[in-house]
């Protein structure tokens, strides 16, 4: 086929693209992904029984804000990473700020505790399972985010894959926060962060072939 013939066929295919096309797609993707994550959480571990009281406490919201901030940062990055020729934008700064904030809170918390109880504070009662549960709960978000990215045009696939992983980890961990009863900032800084970092590592590693277009 001659290039001019191809161009004619493509021009015939030029139907209108709505301005909201990208955000609509992400909104639908995240709606589906959140529902699946919530389903995993509810079926596997259940919402914490004292959720109503917990929602009146600071630690609950500290965890929620930290994980949600990373999820939003991931969403901002993934939307940019799917568009050729633009910078990554504010997502990186937001993620860095959220991480710095939880480290500061954790440091402040530990400074006010005797050194002998640091270990108990950091380990809580679920350190061994927390990261892996976050990994599991985030899996549907990661898969759906990667599929949505492939529909876009990621030109830096490792970065894009990592951003999809951050979005997945942040959203998944926020959902997991409805079950988890840990209250320490040090616990959140260590184990939530570890759990949320897993999909970004996977995404960066497989981006090159998983996000090819």
């Amino acid at each position, binding site marked *: 086929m001659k290039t001019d013939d191809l161009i004619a066929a493509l021009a015939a295919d030029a139907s209108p693209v709505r301005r909201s096309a990208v955000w609509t797609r992400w909104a639908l993707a995240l709606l589906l992904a959140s529902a699946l994550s919530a389903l995993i959480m509810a079926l596997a571990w259940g919402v914490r029984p004292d959720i109503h009281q917990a929602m009146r406490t600071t630690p609950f919201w500290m965890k929620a804000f930290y994980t949600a901030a990373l999820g939003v940062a991931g969403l901002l990055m993934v939307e940019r990473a799917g568009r050729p020729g*633009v910078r990554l934008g504010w997502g990186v700064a937001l993620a860095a700020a959220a991480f710095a904030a939880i480290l500061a809170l954790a440091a402040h918390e530990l400074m006010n505790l005797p050194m002998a109880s640091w270990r108990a504070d950091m380990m809580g009662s679920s350190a061994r399972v927390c990261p892996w549960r976050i990994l599991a709960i985030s899996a549907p978000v990661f898969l759906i985010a990667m599929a949505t990215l492939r529909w876009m045009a990621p030109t830096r696939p490792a970065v894009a894959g990592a951003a999809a992983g951050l979005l997945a980890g942040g959203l998944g961990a926020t959902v997991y926060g409805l079950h988890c009863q840990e209250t320490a900032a040090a616990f959140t800084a260590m184990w939530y962060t570890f759990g949320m970092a897993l999909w970004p590592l996977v995404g960066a590693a497989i981006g090159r072939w998983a996000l090819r277009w």
Partner: protein
Amino acid sequence: MGAASLNGLVFRFAREDGGIGAVTSSVSGVEARLKALMLRGLDGDSAAQRDLLSALSGYLRAYFARRLGRDASDIEDLVQETLLAVHLKRASYDRAQPFTPWAYGVARYKLLDHYRRIGSRAEAPLEDAGALFAADDSAPREARRDLGRLLDGLPERQRNLVRDVKITGLSIEEASQRSGMSASAVKVSIHRAVQAMARRARDEDR
């Protein structure tokens, strides 16, 4: 695009191209012209989409020839594959951003993908978008791979529709009358055919 951001672009090109006045004004002229076509194409204007892809094909040909060597046999294939990507991925273009960096991003990605496929270790340095629009070569070469042949696996109706609109230049309405399908069914068929061409263009060399 506002005057301020256009000036920013001009300034960027001016700085990175060493401040040559002629280059500066021509690249910003290209940006303004192509962006206007892209926006109209996104609103569903076929003629604008055709003008956009025609203009891009000249820049792409010159860019790939510079990177692959003037006589490389796969230049035209790569031009076609990139045009398919520009068309199919156009939703990923943010109307608030300049157009030329987007087009350059797509072209460079396709070049890197090509290098990877042929097992070349050549690198495509990340340049300013001006690298794609520095030269124009509007004389098409012979494509090594025949995308038309890739249509052979499609249902006859879709194949005929694509031939109708590309060779005889029928409009969607005319093609719809001739085939007895509704205009929206014609559109869907053509879109499927285009997607199939893009899929096969990418898969054939794997």
